């Protein structure tokens, strides 16, 4: 108590100015950030045709849950949700394991090929063969038209390795050395010593990966177009969105269009946005406590 009050006493005029400016700035920052999200929320609960007229800010003018009904009535949404959860969980776990293991190897200071291995992966961040060779490769490997196309191709990524490596390098060597004296091999050190210490960075990387898996739809369209059992949540939403927007582009003879008239692209898009954001938002408070310590990045230095 004493020291705290003492500190307060010491705050100069400048410091006070700083606190005031800083607080004002952060409050403004929050408003600017939150407003569009809340606006989206308000729109998602508004009547479709009414929303078209504009002028809705934070509160729905004509309340309606039609947009959500439309979103949750999508034919493939159940299957999409199952696949998305499966790929998010499985994909994140496998990729985390793979990246952690590789980063462990790269971060061993005694390892012979340490720096060349790093370069090998850094290059992959920027060099890219383009769409067609990628498609041809995945087809040749038998990964198209399968669930595994979501998991295998993105298993290891250079950015993740850089983050994990930095964290592992920052751990004190003494743990490893004492374990080594006890006769532990590298795998034991990885599983029993390094990994438990890496919880924060694992959590951070896992969230990155999970967000990526959760939001992806392009791979579902590109590789599993004819396999509805492997559809993903976002792909189904994407289909709905292009359909709401283009419902008229469909017909070429009259009297054919039968469209949902109560919802409009604005409200459906808002509802879809909120619906997909929600699970991630619910998840991240649990992981957030790790962030502050988990994510650092560093390079090599002599």
């Amino acid at each position, binding site marked *: 108590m004493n020291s705290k009050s003492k500190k307060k006493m010491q705050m100069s005029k400048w410091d006070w100015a700083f606190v005031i400016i800083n607080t004002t700035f952060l409050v403004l920052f929050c408003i600017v950030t939150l407003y569009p999200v809340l606006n989206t929320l308000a729109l998602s609960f508004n009547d479709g045709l009414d929303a078209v007229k504009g002028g809705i800010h934070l509160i729905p003018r004509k309340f309606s849950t039609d947009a959500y009904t439309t979103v949750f009535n999508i034919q493939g949404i159940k299957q999409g949700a199952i696949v998305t959860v499966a790929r998010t969980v499985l994909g994140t776990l496998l990729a985390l394991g793979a990246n952690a293991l590789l980063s462990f190897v790269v971060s061993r200071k005694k390892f012979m090929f340490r720096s060349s291995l790093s370069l090998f992966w850094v290059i992959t*961040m920027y060099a890219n063969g383009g769409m067609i060779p990628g498609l041809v490769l995945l087809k040749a490997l038998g990964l198209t038209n399968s669930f595994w196309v979501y998991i295998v191709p993105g298993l290891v990524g250079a950015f993740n390795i850089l983050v994990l490596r930095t964290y592992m390098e920052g751990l004190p060597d003494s743990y490893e050395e004492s374990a080594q004296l006890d006769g532990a091999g590298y795998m034991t050190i990885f599983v029993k010593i390094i990994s438990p210490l890496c919880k924060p960075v694992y959590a951070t990387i896992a969230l990155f990966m999970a967000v990526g898996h959760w939001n992806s739809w392009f791979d579902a369209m590109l590789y599993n177009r004819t396999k509805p059992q492997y559809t993903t949540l976002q792909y189904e939403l994407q289909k709905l969105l292009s359909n709401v927007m283009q419902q008229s582009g469909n017909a070429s003879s009259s009297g054919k269009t039968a469209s949902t008239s109560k919802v409009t692209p604005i409200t459906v898009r808002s509802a879809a946005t909120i619906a997909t954001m929600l699970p991630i938002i619910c998840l991240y408070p649990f992981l957030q406590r790790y962030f502050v310590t988990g994510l650092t990045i560093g390079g090599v230095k002599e």
Partner: protein
Amino acid sequence: MSLMGTNSPALKEKNTRAEMKRQRILLIIAGLFVIYGIVFYYLPLFGWIMAFQNYKIKDGIFGSEFVGLRWFKFLFSDQTFLRVIRNTLCMGVLNLVSTTITAIGFAILLNEVRNTFGKKLVQTISYLPHFLSWIVVTGIVHDALSINGVINELFVNLHIFKEPISFFSHKEYFWPIVALSNVWKETGWNAIIYLATITSIDPALYEAAAMDGAGRWQKIKHITLPGLRSTIIILLIMNIGNVINAGFEVQYLLTNGFIKPVSETIDIYVLTYGVGKMNYSLGTAGGIFKTFVSLVLIVIFNFIAKKTGDERLF
């Protein structure tokens, strides 16, 4: 690629036979991942051959006719492509600089907040936009900046604007709009890494500075910023390679006839002239050019970092 890194003599001494034996498992793992990397990242690079062919799907990579540097010549003699490079690099640099500065600034300011609850709250809110897709974000930006949008409504009511501004009808607003969209979407998320680094700075340094009578400004200037230096440099080196990837979705979704000359990026060009017209060879040539620029930029910046004695990527 050199296979041996620069091993210090001390390290070599330690590389005894026993250590070699222990490292066998590391070698096996590294080997497996190298195979994975070769298959999934390096093998597709053979597709680059397409850039030197008049690639036809039916004939495949092995059957298509070779045309040498035709597509590269086409690209560099095309006024549109040269303009598109300018757009891409300018927007890329603008985005990189603005998102880096705001993320660092935000991290520092947030770090100065003493109230734990307020800090958590602000941080949580700051991530939100990251989870929105670009389709949604561009929709928001477009609405907010339209003639009847929130921004015009606000600024006209505050008498800052005399009359509503049609932001998307004027070329000069477009690059800042893209940069600000990036700032809005990613500041909170990008700040995570800087916040994490700040927390890892030894608190003793701050205490010592306080003893010397340093105020907040001084502490930020003399402790926090230098503490962030290596993270900033590594991220800059990494991201400088992405300057050439200034974006596709934002520009594609926000463009219109008026601003097309400043909004088109290399990716959009490749899409229009390459994929859309099924000229995969041209598309691949554009991709190679991008990779080349990325690598050159990274190597240059990595070299500078090495010279100045900073941490570097490789």
